[in-house]
């Protein structure tokens, strides 16, 4: 059932056991994993870390480890399916799940012995009450009084039976949409806080996890702001604890500060001009793929009085006089050009004299490392590299991540520009559809196609040459009031069923699937009829 707080006696049990950590491949999960690893080190709990990328991976990992481990911790995977059904574990296996995917499968919610969910109480779960969907055995037995031979052997006490009929009737709406809850790393940070073992490092990882949800458009703006406020309370608590006029901290200690900073990706590690050109928000609002857009950008820079030579050089080398008021100057001018939200609440960290990073910088760098497409690198190598880049002692890795992220952003921009300019976007009834041909730069670079959402594409298709399959990503339309609930998951499933297309629903996000190229057209037709 639910465990809002990690009870110390449960923790005591884990101290003397070995634990298997199964972690999904997204930044929030990585941050949560780092926090949990730090907690395990404090209490010297032995654990095995297994990165998983999809349901199949999860199944294989479980089969490999089920002999040696009784306790499994799943991070950002497993809550939205009937886990016991899928994995068929022994009766003494216990699963601790901290997953942001919603809706949580009702069987997981109401299982009392084997599945323990770490969820915040006020997260909107919309779980129907127990009686609506489970029918207890007692009711059934009453009706079977005629069957004498079986009654004596049945154990006393209620047994649950998941009643399909009642479930379908009661909660059709419940599983229609998928969305995300509070970030897993924030959950683990709260756990550390309750155990009074929270450190600034953990706080920073929690901030990065939260920022990942925002950067990749998984939560609403309201939720992001609320969570930022929660984090801000922790940050002030930590800052108060250590700063004192008399005994100031060593410069090498980590300092986290609240920043109301610009929404220009990686601008402090790049040049201002490059950052403006390659950030989704600015490039889409200015429409930088058109000549008009370019002109507007030049006007914008001139309006702020920023000479081109300054703006094109590395940010750190810009004149101090320009850097001082940069944020206010940019905000003023952006309002004139219709970019109302150029500034966003976030956090920055600095330690040592040289090292300053914003939370979004870290997210992009780590994401680039996680999904890096260099040859000879397996998924788990990338996972470990990305995990390493989150530690303060691995700054080189972080910097290489930043370089990779820059390349990725530039590739995204070029692709977007070419798609729009060459009219690759087709309107197919209820959605817009864009097909990226073989010639586009490395496909895997685009497994995070969030950049394209701001261009109001609702559906994108990528071509994977090796496997002859296509990756389909469904993204709901972008609007001011959108609650980020994604209906594409169910739509994909139904369309696949009705046309018996060969699909692979392996990703933990049900809105991302793989589809055989040959079935593409009939799948899309089915999808069109479904969504109309």
């Amino acid at each position, binding site marked *: 059932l639910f465990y809002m707080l990690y009870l110390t006696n449960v923790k005591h049990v884990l101290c003397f056991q070995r634990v298997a950590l199964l972690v999904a491949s997204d930044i929030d999960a990585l941050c949560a994993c780092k926090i949990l690893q730090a907690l395990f080190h404090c209490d010297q709990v032995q654990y095995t870390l297994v990165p998983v990328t999809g349901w199949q991976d999860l199944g294989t990992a479980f089969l490999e480890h089920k002999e040696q481990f009784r306790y499994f911790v799943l991070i950002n995977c497993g809550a939205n399916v009937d886990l016991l059904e899928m994995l068929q574990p022994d009766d003494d296996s216990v699963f601790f799940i901290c997953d942001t995917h919603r809706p949580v499968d009702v069987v997981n919610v109401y299982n009392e012995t084997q599945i323990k969910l770490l969820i915040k109480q006020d997260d909107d779960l919309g779980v129907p009450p127990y009686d609506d969907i489970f029918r207890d055995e007692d009711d059934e037995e009453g009706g079977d009084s005629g069957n004498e031979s079986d009654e004596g052997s049945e154990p006393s006490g209620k047994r649950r039976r998941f009643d399909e009929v009642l479930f379908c009737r009661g909660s059709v709406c419940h599983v229609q949409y998928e969305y995300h809850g509070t970030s897993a790393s924030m959950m683990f940070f709260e756990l550390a806080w309750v155990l009074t073992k929270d450190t600034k490092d953990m706080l920073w990882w929690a901030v990065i996890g939260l920022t990942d949800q925002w950067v990749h458009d998984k939560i609403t703006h309201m939720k992001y702001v609320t969570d930022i406020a929660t984090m801000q309370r922790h940050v002030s608590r930590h800052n108060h604890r*250590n700063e004192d006029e008399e005994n100031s*901290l*060593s410069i*090498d*200690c980590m300092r986290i500060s609240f920043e109301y900073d610009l929404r220009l990706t990686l601008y402090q590690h790049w040049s201002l001009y490059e950052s403006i050109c390659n950030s989704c928000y600015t490039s889409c609002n200015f429409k930088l793929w058109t000549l008009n857009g370019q002109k507007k950008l030049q006007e914008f820079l001139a309006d702020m009085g920023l000479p081109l030579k300054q703006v094109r050089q590395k940010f750190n080398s810009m004149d101090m006089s320009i850097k001082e008021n940069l944020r206010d100057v940019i905000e003023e001018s952006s309002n004139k050009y219709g970019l109302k939200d150029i500034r966003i609440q976030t956090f920055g960290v600095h330690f040592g004299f040289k090292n300053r990073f914003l939370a979004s910088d870290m997210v992009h760098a780590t994401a680039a490392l996680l999904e890096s497409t260099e040859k000879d690198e397996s998924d788990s190598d990338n996972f470990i590299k990305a995990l390493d880049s989150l530690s303060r002692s691995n700054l080189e890795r972080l910097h290489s991540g930043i370089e990779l992220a820059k390349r990725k952003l530039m590739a995204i921009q070029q692709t977007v520009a070419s798609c729009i300019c060459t009219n690759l976007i087709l309107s197919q009834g209820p959605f817009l559809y864009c097909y990226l041909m073989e010639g586009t730069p490395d496909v895997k670079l685009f497994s995070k196609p969030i950049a394209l959402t701001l261009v109001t594409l609702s559906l994108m298709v990528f071509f994977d040459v090796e496997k002859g399959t296509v990756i389909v990503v469904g993204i709901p339309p972008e609007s001011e009031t959108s609650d980020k609930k994604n209906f594409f998951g169910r739509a994909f499933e139904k369309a696949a069923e009705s046309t018996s297309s060969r699909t692979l629903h392996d990703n933990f996000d049900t809105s991302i699937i793989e589809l055989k190229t040959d079935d593409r057209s009939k799948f899309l037709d089915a999808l069109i009829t479904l969504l109309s």
Partner: protein
Amino acid sequence: MDSSEVEFLAEKEMVKIIPNFSLDRIYLIGGDLGPFNPGLPVDVPVWLALNLKQRQKCRIVPPAWMDVEKLEEMRELERKEDTFTPVPSPYYMELTKLLLNYASDNIPKADEIRTLVKDIWDTRIAKLRLSADSFISQLEAHAKLDNLTLMEINTIRAFLLDSLNCMYKLRSNLQPGSSKGQFTDY
């Protein structure tokens, strides 16, 4: 001897910590430790203090000599005297490095302390080099140096011994009629 060995020996020094857990007395081969009660200071060896600190189970109290004013005085004294002045602790350099690496959030004005200790170290090493230089060049037979720490001795050991060996070889070759190899006249 390697500097890491010297650091290992330095970890046996005692330092005061304030634990946040409780544990009865523990009986180790090197001696007894504890009992540990949350909030009450207890003396433990540095290796244990660092381990507990990393597991967030204690707070380290900086030793009495690790204070800006005291270190400033020591530095001035060191600069004035020609010989070596008494050191705050036989392992002052290693302890500074270890404690400032792992527990700099428990030590006030950590950066200044680091600079001051480095200044003291530099002055002493300079004196040591001068002394070694004069010892070798003036072919002295013995020297007496007070108040040197193991780390400083270790720094100069390899050089001093090798150069003295070289000098001995050169000297013994110059003496006519010595049993070691003679120069043939060319």
